[in-house]
């Protein structure tokens, strides 16, 4: 019987990691694009407090007027709600956005360098009228701003 070439057997039959070829696997952990690990458990948290605790531990966030959280008062389409987070706080490290009315509140987190203005605009899904929460980490401290958004057509489950 002819011996089949390794390549003909099919990758599913051979765990590549056992061949020492783990570095070739397009696994999430290895091919991470950013130097920080993607915060998996925070994105899977189903309660706002749990998501925040997962990201920031038990650090208290100080409400700050120095964060400008811009979003429509009324979102006609909950699938596409424009949000901008901006701050004049110095030394910004991260800016995080959550929605307390979503099944999974954590929406996005930005890792800011001094090369960019601490201002990011994205569009997010809101499942129902609820609050957007912005958390800014600056010089080791945590700051928070909240904005209520009314949603006329919810955007998470279609």
């Amino acid at each position, binding site marked *: 019987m002819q011996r089949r070439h390794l390549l003909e057997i099919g990758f599913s039959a051979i765990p590549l990691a056992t061949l020492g070829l783990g570095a070739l696997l397009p696994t999430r952990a290895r*091919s991470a*694009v950013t130097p920080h690990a993607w915060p998996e458990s925070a994105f899977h948290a189903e309660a706002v407090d749990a998501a925040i605790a997962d990201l920031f531990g038990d650090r208290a966030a100080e409400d700050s007027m120095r964060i400008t959280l811009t979003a429509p008062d009324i979102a006609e389409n909950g699938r596409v709600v424009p949000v901008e987070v901006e701050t004049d706080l110095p030394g910004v490290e991260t800016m995080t956005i959550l929605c307390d009315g979503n099944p999974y509140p954590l929406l*996005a987190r930005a*890792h800011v*360098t001094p090369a960019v*203005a601490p201002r990011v605009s994205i569009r997010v899904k809101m499942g129902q009228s609820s609050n957007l929460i912005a958390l800014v980490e600056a010089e080791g401290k945590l700051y928070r701003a909240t904005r209520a958004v009314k949603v006329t057509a919810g*955007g998470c489950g279609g």
Partner: protein
Amino acid sequence: MSREYGRLRAKAKDGGISVRALIRHPMETGSRKDPATDTAIPRHYIQEVVCEHNGEVVLSLDWGWGVSANPYLAFHIQQGQTGDVVLIRWIDDRGETGSLEAKVA
């Protein structure tokens, strides 16, 4: 850059660069049902986004499936000029990657 990945505009502004991107990606939450088959459309979303200016990372983002489909992203690079290169690259939860690159106008 390839239209299949989206659009990227980078404009010199106020001594810096105004960047606006529209990335093509379904960003499915996993909760939507296909009306034709009544089965759930699988979750599929960009997880990590990295933005570079002349080869240096200036901003990176962690996204979840709560970011809208065909995600929009805008930010401002503090110092820059026409001719500079802005690159945005990403990887999704299936390990699929994409990128957009533009010269600052």
